[in-house]
């Protein structure tokens, strides 16, 4: 669906810094939702303002727009879920550079607004879905609970490793590996470049 095959890897790599905070299911939901909304709203704004952006100011303008959107979303979220957002907030602006990456891709620049929106939904979905799944797996394997409910802590010891960024890297590697395996089993293209 997307024209740029390398984008999937780049999106996942740029979403990696955020996995440092996505340690529990709740925080990862917050991060995933914010990043998804940030991507979509930024794409909308960039499409609307396309006529004002020249070649040279494009990058800077995209950065400013995405940072602004992320800032507004963070403030909205901290109104409703203050403590959750506070633990996550130093890392949230790092989404903006993922957003910039998505905005600079061929799919959003050269397309009509409707197509650009569709592409941004896909790419934003990849990023936020990745964060969400990593968060859930980290909580499940690292603390034995899901959404705060203990599942297996009384039978097996949960693996403390996954609360650290090390665990996030292992889970990310396993997820992409699983995706590649599934892709090669069903015969479509994957994330290799």
């Amino acid at each position: 669906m997307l024209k740029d095959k390398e984008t999937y890897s780049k999106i996942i790599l740029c979403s990696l810094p955020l996995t440092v905070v996505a340690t529990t299911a709740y925080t990862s939901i917050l991060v995933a939702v914010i990043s998804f909304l940030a991507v979509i709203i930024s794409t909308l704004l960039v499409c609307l303002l396309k006529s004002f952006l020249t070649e040279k100011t494009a990058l800077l303008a995209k950065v400013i727009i995405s940072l602004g959107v992320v800032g507004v979303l963070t403030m909205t979220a901290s109104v409703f879920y203050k403590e959750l957002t506070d633990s996550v907030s130093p890392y949230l602006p790092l989404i903006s550079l993922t957003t910039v990456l998505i905005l600079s891709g061929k799919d959003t620049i050269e397309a009509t607004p409707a197509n650009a929106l569709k592409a941004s939904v896909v790419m934003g979905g990849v990023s936020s879905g990745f964060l969400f799944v990593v968060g859930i797996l980290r909580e499940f394997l690292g603390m034995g609970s899901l959404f705060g409910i203990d599942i297996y802590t009384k039978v097996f010891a949960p693996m403390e490793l996954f609360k650290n960024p090390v665990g996030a890297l292992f889970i990310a590697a396993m997820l992409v590996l699983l995706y590649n395996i599934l892709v090669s089993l069903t015969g479509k293209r994957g994330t290799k470049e």
Partner: protein
Amino acid sequence: MRMIITLFVTGVFTSNLVTYNLLGIDSLHSDNKTSLSSVLKNGFVVTVVLLLSTTICQPLNNLVLSPLKLGYLAPLTFVLVIFGILLLLRVLSSKFLPKAFMFLKENIKVESVALIALGLCLIAFEYEVARGYAMSLLYSVICGVGYTVVSLMFFAINKRLAEVKLPEAVKGLPITLLIAALISLAFGGLAGL
């Protein structure tokens, strides 16, 4: 003296930008580094950018943003400063050091370096790793050195893996993440100074 050693171990090993904060992995994933000297030059450029951005952002943060409670403007100002620094480096090198300018144009991706610098500014100031202006500058240089160390490891390991027939599903992104995970695991042992 002991504090400097502690800072060094923290910056290079335990809170390494790549392995603990997962920041620079997208620039390590692309294999455009063809020789040891280009890896070292890349690391040097990143270190310089980190140093310059901390020089400007630290006083900005402590003297302007915090007292005026403008904390939410921090990411925006940092990004503007960082892009300004990158622009300045390009302009200066195009005038005085043409070879460096060619190198910058081909090898340094602006988004990756900006992500690393933004991450360092946000995380280091938020979590107050180093007290005081001089220590912050030192810490940013140390983080740059840490990035270079991991970059060298990646370069050598990728060179070795290029001669090896990897399983199909593991090529590309998963193996990069796995290597990063192993390096992260190894560096985690130096915690607790």
